């Protein structure tokens, strides 16, 4: 899956009330500016020692692909709780009273979860070609500070392709993206440049021009 930084207001506040405990309000840091960072920020807050239910109620977070190829989060605590609408736009969590778990009713902002996992390869430093002579060669840049240039490819169906276009509508500029690399079980934060789309029968192939730090 893939999470874009978007122009939404990521400094949102959401108020959570668990059972008879006092209401708690989480304010997301504006630097947590994609759905992955914000959802994890909320989870950490809900399980932090400062919460009145700490030690009694434990929250867990899971995510799943929606029918429109976005991400739906589920927060579970096993107790009755309520949410206000503060996280509706960014995380898709609607205001309401919940019995044990709350699942996003709309796709999280900037999320893209194609059916086939994105291929992220060659996350390695890349130096341009330089000059050479009979006695040696000079390549531009510093090997230790050169850019990471992974290859990011996705095979997508029609719904996946439509969802990416929808998510890109609100992508922030400069455009950055958080991509999951399965082989290293890690998230890569990348600058997302040109996106090339080509038809592959009834599906699409996406080549994402990405550069990371």
């Amino acid at each position, binding site marked *: 899956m893939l999470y874009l930084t978007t122009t939404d207001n990521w400094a949102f506040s959401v108020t959570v009330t668990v059972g008879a405990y006092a209401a708690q309000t989480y304010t997301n840091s504006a630097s947590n500016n994609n759905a992955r960072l914000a959802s994890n920020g909320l989870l950490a807050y809900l399980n932090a020692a400062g919460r009145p239910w700490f030690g009694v109620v434990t929250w867990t977070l899971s995510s799943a692909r929606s029918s429109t190829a976005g991400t739906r989060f589920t927060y579970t605590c096993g107790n009755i709780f309520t949410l206000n609408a503060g996280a509706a736009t960014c995380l898709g969590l609607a205001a309401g009273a919940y019995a044990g778990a709350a699942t996003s009713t709309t796709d999280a902002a900037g999320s893209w979860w194609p059916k086939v996992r994105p291929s992220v390869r060659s996350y390695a430093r890349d130096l341009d070609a330089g000059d050479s002579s009979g006695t040696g060669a000079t390549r531009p840049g510093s090997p230790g*500070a050169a850019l990471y240039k992974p290859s990011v490819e996705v095979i997508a169906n*029609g719904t996946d392709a439509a969802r990416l*276009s929808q998510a890109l*509508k609100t992508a922030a500029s*400069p*455009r950055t993206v958080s991509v999951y690399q399965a082989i290293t079980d890690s998230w890569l934060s990348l*600058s997302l440049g040109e996106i090339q789309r080509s038809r592959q029968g009834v599906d699409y192939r996406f080549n994402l021009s990405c550069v990371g730090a």
Partner: protein
Amino acid sequence: MAGAYIESYCYSEGGSGATVALEANQSFATDTGVYVRPSVPQRFTDQLATWKTQLDAAIPAKAPWVCSYSSTTKRVTIASAGAAWAPALTLPGNVAVWIGWQSYTGSGAPHIYTGQYVPGARAELIGATIEVAEDWTQTELAQYRHGRANAVVWGNHQVHKVTLHGNLDAYESIKQGYLQSGRVRIYQDSTITTAYAVDNLGGYIDGYVIACGPAVEQGDRWWSWDMLVGVSR
């Protein structure tokens, strides 16, 4: 899937009920000097509804007026109530082509007018292939020292690659040009009356024609047109 069609939006300079004819495809007049026109650009069928509303208001003695289009006969009909009074319609500019009439300014005509031709503003299609929207963005991926990069992006629309398939009637409509330029709405399926969205890929698209290729003859009385339609995001 049934009933694909494309409609164009009419031109409008704004204002309604004016008493001067505009050399455009937005208005027509009766012999009583009443001009009817939408005050904003409107889709062909909406424009017909506006004409009817304005005629009903301007000439209530002959209301209810009829301004309609039949997707079966592919003709526009304009009529006033009562056979005793026959309005002679003046069609300034290209209105005649727009609605598929011969330009007519005479009198003594019957009170029901039905177009002789297919309108230039709408075409019934054999089918329409609309590709999933593609984000249309200019991108500058700037790379800096110490491993830093910024992808600056800007843009304001999405694009759909579209292929229209039509028979001779569609060919006659589309060749007039109104469906190949400006703002259009394309229904892939007339039973789906909601707009294209990620959860409604069969919905209609409503946007501006960025490019349109020539008619390509596919077979006996079957033509196709490749188009690029931009939709504001």
